[in-house]
Structure formats: C-alpha cells, structure tokens
C-alpha cells in the first residue's frame, strides 16, 4: 500500500472503569471507504475520536497523512471533516446560518455553503431553525458541515443511528455520490451491517476494544469455513445442547430465544450430519432457516451476540 492516509499503531485508551481500546492497529489507504463495525460499547467512538484528535491515546501512535496531532493540529483540522455522534447545533439558528458559521471557520464563503446545502438536499430547509428539523435532516446538516471543506479524510461516527430506513437511505445516497466523485477517504462507525456492506469496501469488526476481524466484504464472508448460516428451533428445546465431537461441533445455543445457530461449510455433505445429530439425541426440529452468511452472522459466530444488542 502507498502511504496510508491514516495509520493507527497499537493504540490503548482507558477511562476510569473501562478499557475502551486495547491495542488497535490499522491502516487506511487513500480513497478507501472503511467501516468500523461493532456493537454499542465496542470502543468505536473512542477509537474514532482519537483519530479525530479529540481524545489522546494513553499509549500508541496515530498518524494522519504521516503526521501526528501534536504540533500539526492547525494543518490537520483543515483536511478533516467529521460528524460526531449526537451533536446538537444551536437551536434557534437557521440551517444556512449554521452552515455559514462553520464555513467561516474554514474561511469559506457563501458559494460553498449553497453548494453543500444542495449536496445534502436541504434546499427547502435552508431558512428553517435547526430545532425544527427532523432527525434525518439534522444528520444531513451534520454531514453537510463535515463536507464543507472538501475534506481529504471524512470521519463519521454513527451517521444514521436512530434514523428511519428512508432517512438512512438518503444519507447513504449522499455518501455513495461522494465516493464516486472525489478522492475522499472515509471512516464510518456503525452497528448496522447493511450500512457497512453498502458503503464500504473495507470492514473492521471490533468488539470490547479489540479488532476481531478485518478485510473486504468478500474476504470476510468467504474466509470463514462455511458459506451458509443455519438457524433452527426445536419442538423439545433442552436447557443445553448435547455436545458432540463430530460435526456439528460449533452450534451456539441461545437460551433466551431458544434457537441454535451454526455455520455450514458444505451443504450437501454436512447438512445430513446435522439431521443425524438431532435424531441421535432425540431432538425434534421445529423450524430451520439456511441462508447466505451476513456480517451479523459472522459477528454472532465470533462473539455469540448480535451487532445491535
């Protein structure tokens, strides 16, 4: 890889009670869109805020375009655009005024403000007070502010959390357009696997402050032993499934929803073994679903939990 736009080297960060980030290293290539995928509390925000220069790592090093935040803050602020999780702008300021305020920080004029307002589709709302915007409109405003300075690096912390599917798709459309047009590199944190799949070419799954797995979507999903994901329920669910050394050896049984899940390598040869297993243990199948593996399945098979838990 040529010089990465972002390089994170063995970064640690702790707060009073939690170790939020435990030794994460990663490199982001110029022009790539990267998703940091993980459940709530995985350490996504802490990691991104350290990259944004808002928080300082306890240990490790972060290089943006080959430079550290120390001594280079003024320069780096000019090339980074970001949106934080849940920023609330000034209530009684209009959309265009809020944009103009932030544009002035980058010494940008009205032309760029107008351009960005139309880019994020807020033309109708330019005179509206921020307090009267819907959740989706607020997120588009935040995204617009992040895009004002045509950033080389765009950092978005959960840009669509809490939005309805329509509003979410609008944000995705804006970002996809951006991806086609410019050489911007983007890091986006999310706990929606669909968002990561749709927008990003490289995905980093983190949980409990560590990277569990990373790669392109194809790499990740084909890398696993199996290609299919199986979820089943039983007519006579036991408290715990009987263990076996043969296939299927890695069924995760969730007591709460009384469902078992496992990943299947070869459907034709392995599925019969599963039925044999049920028969041998006197378990009666109630319902079964077999489908292509998703990121959520991958996460579940790695941690036993869902991404959105």
């Amino acid at each position: 890889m040529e010089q990465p736009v972002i390089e994170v080297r063995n970064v640690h960060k702790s707060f009073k009670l939690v170790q939020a980030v435990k030794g994460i290293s990663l490199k982001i290539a110029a022009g790539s869109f990267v998703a940091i995928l993980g459940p709530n509390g995985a350490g996504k925000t802490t990691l991104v805020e350290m990259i944004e220069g808002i928080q300082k790592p306890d240990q490790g090093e972060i290089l943006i375009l080959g430079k550290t935040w120390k001594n280079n803050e003024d320069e780096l602020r000019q090339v980074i655009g970001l949106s934080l999780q849940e920023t609330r702008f000034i209530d009684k300021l209009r959309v265009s005024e809020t944009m103009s305020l932030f544009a002035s920080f980058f010494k940008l004029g009205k032309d760029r403000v107008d351009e960005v307002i139309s880019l994020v589709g807020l033309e109708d709302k330019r005179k509206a007070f921020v307090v009267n915007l819907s959740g989706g409109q607020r997120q588009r405003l935040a995204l617009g502010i992040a895009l004002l300075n045509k950033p080389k690096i765009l950092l978005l912390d959960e840009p669509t959390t809490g939005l309805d599917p329509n509003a979410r798709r609008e944000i995705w459309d804006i970002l996809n357009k951006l991806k086609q047009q410019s050489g911007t590199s983007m890091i986006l944190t999310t706990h929606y696997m669909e968002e990561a799949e749709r927008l990003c070419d490289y995905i980093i799954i983190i949980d409990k402050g560590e990277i569990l797995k990373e790669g392109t979507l194809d790499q990740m999903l084909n890398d696993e032993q199996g290609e299919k994901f199986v979820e089943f329920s039983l007519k006579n669910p036991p408290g715990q499934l009987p263990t076996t050394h043969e296939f299927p050896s890695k069924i995760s049984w969730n007591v709460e929803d009384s469902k078992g899940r496992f990943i299947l390598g070869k459907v034709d040869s392995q599925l019969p073994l599963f039925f044999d297993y049920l028969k041998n243990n006197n378990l009666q199948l109630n319902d079964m679903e077999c489908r292509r593996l998703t990121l959520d399945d991958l996460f579940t098979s790695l941690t036993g939990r869902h991404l959105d838990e």
Partner: protein
Amino acid sequence: MNKYFANSQLFQLINAHFKELIREPGVLFWGIVFPILMSLGLGVAFTQKTDVVRKVAIIETNDDGSNSLTKSDSLLNFRAQEISDLSTDSFNYSITIPDEQLGNTTFLFRKTNWQHAMLMLKRGKINLILNEKDGKTEYHFDPLNPDAQLSYIKLSALFGKNDIKPVTEVGSIKPLTLTGTRYIDFLIPGLIVMNVMMSCMWGISYGIIDRRSKKLLRRMVATPMKKSYFLLSLITVRFAMNFVESGLLVLFAWFAFNISIQGNYAALLAIFMAGNFAFAGIAIFISSYTANTEVGNGLINAVVMPMMVLSGVFFSYHNFPDWSIPVIQKLPLTMLADGIRSIFNEGAGFGEIYLPFGILTLSGIVFFSLGLKIFRWH
C-alpha cells in the same frame, strides 16, 4: 457587506450568538422588561407614602366582678370604631391616626383569648398581643421583628398619653425627596449591577456548559475555529446586551422617577465595563470544566446568591454586623454597586472609582486566565 467581514470567524460567531439570544422571546422579557417592571414596582412601593395597617390582639380579661374598665377597654370604647363583621379571624375595632407627612396608621384590634391570639401570631395575622394584668399593660411580641417593635412603640404612645397626635405636630420631619437621596436613586444602580452579574453568569456560564453538554463545543473545536474567538464572541454579545438593558433601565428611571447621573459619564462607562469584565471572567472560570447543566446551576448559584444577599442590591449592606462590612465591600458586586452609586448619586468621577475599577479589571483578567487554563473544550 464587506466579503472578508462576512466570512470572518469572529463576525460569524458574534452574529450567531446574537441571533440566538434575540430569537428567544424570553430573553427580551427577562433582560429588558423585567428589570424595568421591578424598578417600577419597588420604586413605587418604597417611594409612595402608604397607609400602614397594624394588627393587634387584645386578650379578653376574665370577668372578675369588678366593674372597673381596663385601659384597653376605655381606649376602644372612646376612640375606636366598632367593626360589625364577625368572622373568626376578623378584627372588631379600628383606630385610625391621620398623618399627612408619613401616611396614616390604622390599628386593627381583635379581642380574643390567649390561645387564639397565639394562633393568629403564629400565622402572621398579628404581630403583637396586648394583655392587661392587675392594671398593668403587657406587650407580647418578637423583639427581633422591627415591625412588631414599631407597633409597640406607636401603641404604647397611644396608651401613655391617652391621645396620639400626628407626628408632624411633635417635631420636625423633613421628608427627603431630593434626587440622589431617595430609595429609587439607591435602587436603580442596584438593579443595573444585578443585571450585569446575572446576565454574565447565566448567559456566559450557562451558554458554555450547555454547549459542552450538547457536544457542540467539541464539534466546534474540531474545526480550525480560533478558541479565543468563541469566548470573545460570547462575551461581546453579553456586553452589548447588558449595555442596552442598563441604558433602557436608566432611561426609564429618568422618565418615571426623574433620576439623574450626577457624576462623570466616562467614569460610569469605565466601571460598568470593568464590572462586566470581572463577571465575564468569573463566568468563564466557573464554567470551564463541567458538562453537567445541573452542576452548572449549582456553581452559578453559589457565586450569585451570596452577592445578591450581601452586596446591597436592594438594601444597604450597612445593616449587616460591623465585622462583616469590610468583607462585603470587597465582593465584586459590592464594588461595582458602590462605584456606580457614587457616580449616580454623589457626583463621583475617575478619582473616586479608580480603585474598584482596577480591582474589577484585574479580577476579570485573573479569573479569565485561570478559567482558560483548566478549560475543557471536549
């Protein structure tokens, strides 16, 4: 508008903060209308002579057979008017002493038993109980209550002479109605300084803490915005508002009460700015760390409340114990109030206010720098 000007950070920040302020209708009411109403209310209440009503309970003596009238009986019989309405807590007699200079005083009496009288006292319906034992008159009241004391003095005079004369006949009361000596002349500077303190403390401190808790502060400093411009814009907007608010209040008081500024206008502006600066510094200092608006509330109150009580906004602090006066005089609000009052009412100029001016400015600088040192932008 000059293009560079329109795009400048500081201009945009001031513009945004100013618009935010004036778009909140409450701000205009509490900042401008409320102080004027307060000056009107208090000014009228304390400058107009009013009829005073003093309410007293008289303990009914047990009928021991002797037909001698008690003093209070004779007073009530000869001088009082009987009131016919007899609900439980109403008064049965009234005596009005006319007085053109100080306003009339009306005594209302209620004849009742001791228990009921105590109940009325506890409920604040009366503040004095009259009891006659063996021909002697006893006055029961809280000696720490100045109002009750006054009732006692007036009432004992009434009993002593069997006749009470309007005060004017007794001697030589000359009401002070000269500009600069009335209560309203004391009050208006008090209201101005209170407004400066409140507006700086709540406007600036709360503004910062609120933005921090909304993560807006964090978002703003994640741009090339100059941090000092952010604080400077908040302060500038407050100064401008305080200037307008105080100006309108003075203008109103000039129209309604004919108050005047007897001293040096430039000195007044100087100490006014120094006071603004001092409170802006304190506001930045106390809002430099917390992101919790409730903690912020407490911090602001902890600064504001003692000065509201001690610094003589509404009433002179010379009524506090002697040992506390030198301490009170060193509070920023006292310094500002005393300075502004001396210019308004005593004709003071720079010569009289340079010390408070210096101290206020200096404390502004000290608190401002301390605050910046520990300021948490994230």
